[in-house]
């Protein structure tokens, strides 16, 4: 593994990947970083309690949490990886966005958010404690903290690679510098700073992608020119249609390929990721009321549906415009990989000036990923591991201090785990493996626990652990060559194994242990939750407080000031003087609109 990486790095050095940057470009980057740190400093003033620091005081409007939700996912690995896929496979890449994200995001908002937000849980592990027991909370808290530190390391390592390739910084310099920037604003401003910066990052990343697409299309003669040129390159005209996507799935039979996309990508992988990943769910939990929380993933689904147009298409443009990538597509020998598509295209079509904006956007996307990991690690460690387990019953200032300390420790650990990530030749494979270890079993017990009230607390943590063990075993069998499949297929197999084993163990254990009484599961299990709590009535923002008496955050939300704020702050995306109950603020209506939008997009690129 190690030698492979070193080999690819030496090879990389031969094609000049260095961006032709000038002082002007650095102006854009520096100005961006000044604002990022400024947000951290300003956000600091708003931190008065641990809830402020770790969950933004549950006070953010839906457009902010929605854009942060998408931005936390729009990390650099996503950006670089999907543009690479675009260059290699063309349009079929859109499945990762459309069927692979939109339905799960809408499901999260409409079906699951009432349980998450309504339970007043501050984290996914805390929700598991309510539904199952303390052991389940601890098992998930520990594995989540571990996963967060490992994935933060991946983001950091990837950022280091880019700084090394584009700017000529050494990894030993680039990694600590990047960690320091994320650390400084997250340390100062907590989740608020992370989320506010994510919104800013979202716009800067768009300022990278849109000009790149426009300039690229101008170079290849518009969409028609692109289609003509792409069709002439392997794998041929099927790069222009989404279905059946046989090149993407590596399944020759078109019917099975479609089946694989719909069930594999569309169900197990995507629902597992979007519905249980706390780094994402946390953004919705910090929304200011139930309605905003439910709309968070759905508002995020709109950019998620549209953004492949400015990721996949430039990827395809890179494939025809950059000579080395064209050689690669034709099967020739070259010293670049598809992962270089983004930076190669930036250098090819962007003049100095906008190139600097693009560089700022690229750096922003790396920080988005890492900051999301670190800020979710903070919350889980402070609340689930420290407050609920190791040191309970201390005053709130104590936990605020712990939260800040975890930020520092987390960033330091990420520098260490960046070294682990460096030993993997393909970062995407590493991420997928981590996903199958941690998210797939969690999704299994989560979905079972939501719909089956008989499932017991013991079943919760045994299901989690056995699922993880199953995934680790599959992973080592694939690695050892005992199961002869590609690493991509291997991690899918691992995720499926984790899901099936997790469900099976949970069912068996449930039959021999005692379930919680029904009265403890109201609001946590579908069948035991009154329709009003999971349906439309919940969407009326101001009414929520009454429905969940004793809840710390929603209580008293019905007063006049809260309503004025609800209208005032989140407006703009929402018309003047509207109550939050307007039809276009209904999660169900918004969800339906985004599903229709996705369908229309699919028809356009069928």
């Amino acid at each position, binding site marked *: 593994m190690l030698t492979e990486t070193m080999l690819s790095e030496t090879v990389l050095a031969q094609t000049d990947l260095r961006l032709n940057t000038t002082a*002007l470009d650095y*102006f*854009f980057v520096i*100005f*961006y970083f000044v*604002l990022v740190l*400024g947000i951290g400093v*300003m*956000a600091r*003033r*708003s*931190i*008065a*309690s*641990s*809830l*402020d620091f770790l969950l*933004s*005081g*549950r*006070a953010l409007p839906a457009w*902010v949490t929605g854009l942060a939700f998408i931005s936390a996912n729009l990390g650099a690995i996503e950006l670089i990886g999907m543009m690479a896929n675009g260059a290699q496979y063309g349009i079929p890449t859109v499945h990762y966005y459309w069927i692979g994200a939109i339905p799960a995001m809408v499901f999260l908002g409409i079906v699951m958010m009432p349980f998450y937000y309504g339970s007043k849980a501050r984290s996914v592990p805390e929700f598991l404690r309510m539904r199952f027991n303390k052991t389940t909370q601890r098992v998930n808290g520990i594995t989540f903290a571990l996963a967060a530190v490992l994935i933060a390391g991946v983001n950091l390592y990837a950022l280091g690679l880019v700084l090394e390739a584009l700017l000529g910084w050494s990894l030993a310099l680039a990694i600590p510098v990047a960690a320091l920037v994320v650390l400084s604003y997250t340390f100062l401003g907590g989740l*608020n700073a992370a989320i*506010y910066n994510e*919104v*800013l990052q979202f*716009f*800067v990343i768009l*300022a990278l992608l*849109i*000009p790149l697409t*426009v*300039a690229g*299309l*101008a*170079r*290849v003669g518009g969409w028609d020119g692109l289609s003509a040129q792409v069709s002439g390159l392997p794998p041929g005209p099927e790069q222009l249609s989404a279905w059946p996507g046989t090149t993407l799935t590596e399944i020759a039979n078109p019917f099975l390929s479609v089946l694989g996309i719909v069930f594999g990508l569309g169900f197990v992988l995507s629902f597992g990721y979007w519905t249980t990943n706390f780094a994402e769910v946390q953004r919705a939990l910090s929304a200011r009321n139930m309605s905003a929380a439910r709309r968070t993933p759905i508002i995020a689904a709109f950019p998620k549906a549209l953004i492949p147009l400015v990721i996949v298409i430039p990827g395809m443009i890179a494939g025809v415009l950059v000579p080395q990538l064209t050689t690669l597509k034709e099967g020739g020998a070259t010293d670049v990989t598809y992962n270089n598509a983004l930076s190669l295209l930036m250098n*090819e*079509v*962007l*003049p*100095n*000036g*906008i190139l600097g*904006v693009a560089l700022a956007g690229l750096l922003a996307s790396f920080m988005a990923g890492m900051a999301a990991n670190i800020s979710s690690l903070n919350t889980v460690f402070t609340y689930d591991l420290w407050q609920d387990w190791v040191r309970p019953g201390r005053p*709130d200032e104590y936990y605020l201090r712990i939260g800040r300390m975890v930020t520092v420790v987390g960033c330091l650990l990420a520098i260490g785990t960046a070294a682990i990530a460096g030993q993997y030749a393909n970062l995407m494979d590493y991420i997928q493996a981590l996903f199958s270890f941690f998210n797939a079993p969690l999704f299994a017990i989560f979905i079972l626990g939501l719909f089956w009230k008989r499932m017991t607390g013991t079943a919760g943590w045994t299901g989690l652990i056995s699922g993880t063990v199953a995934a680790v075993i599959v992973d080592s069998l694939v690695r050892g060559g005992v199961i002869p499949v590609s690493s991509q297929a291997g991690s899918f197999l691992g995720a499926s194994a984790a899901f099936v084993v997790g469900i099976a163990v949970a069912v068996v254990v449930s039959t021999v242990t005692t379930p919680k009484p029904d009265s403890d599961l109201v609001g946590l299990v579908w069948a035991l939750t009154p329709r009003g709590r999971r349906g439309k009535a919940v969407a009326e923002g101001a009414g929520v407080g009454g429905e969940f008496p004793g809840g*710390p*955050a929603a*209580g*008293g939300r019905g*007063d006049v*000031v*809260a309503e*004025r*704020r609800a209208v*005032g*702050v989140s*407006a*703009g995306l929402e018309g*003047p003087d509207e109550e939050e109950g307007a039809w276009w603020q209904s999660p169900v209506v918004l969800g339906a609109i985004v599903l229709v939008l996705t369908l229309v997009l699919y028809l356009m690129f069928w």
Partner: protein
Amino acid sequence: MSESEERPPFDHAEAPSAASQLFDLRTIIALLFAVYGIVLIVQGLFFDSEAEIAKAGGIHINLWSGIGMVVVAVLFVIWAQMRPLVPPSER
């Protein structure tokens, strides 16, 4: 930038504090794109060489991106002006 708004006091220890309402993020976004946009417009109008313009297939990409960014900045300013954060009420 408007100041944070006061929220009603809560009894619960974990209640979100009055300070939770932040500075207005919309102003920051507007500032970023206004500065980016103006610099890009100046660059696009006066300093872009023919070779640079040819890179983007003859489109004045710096100029147009700059104009787009200024428009975005103006929209955010208008939004922030029309729907300001609710001013703090005295506790």
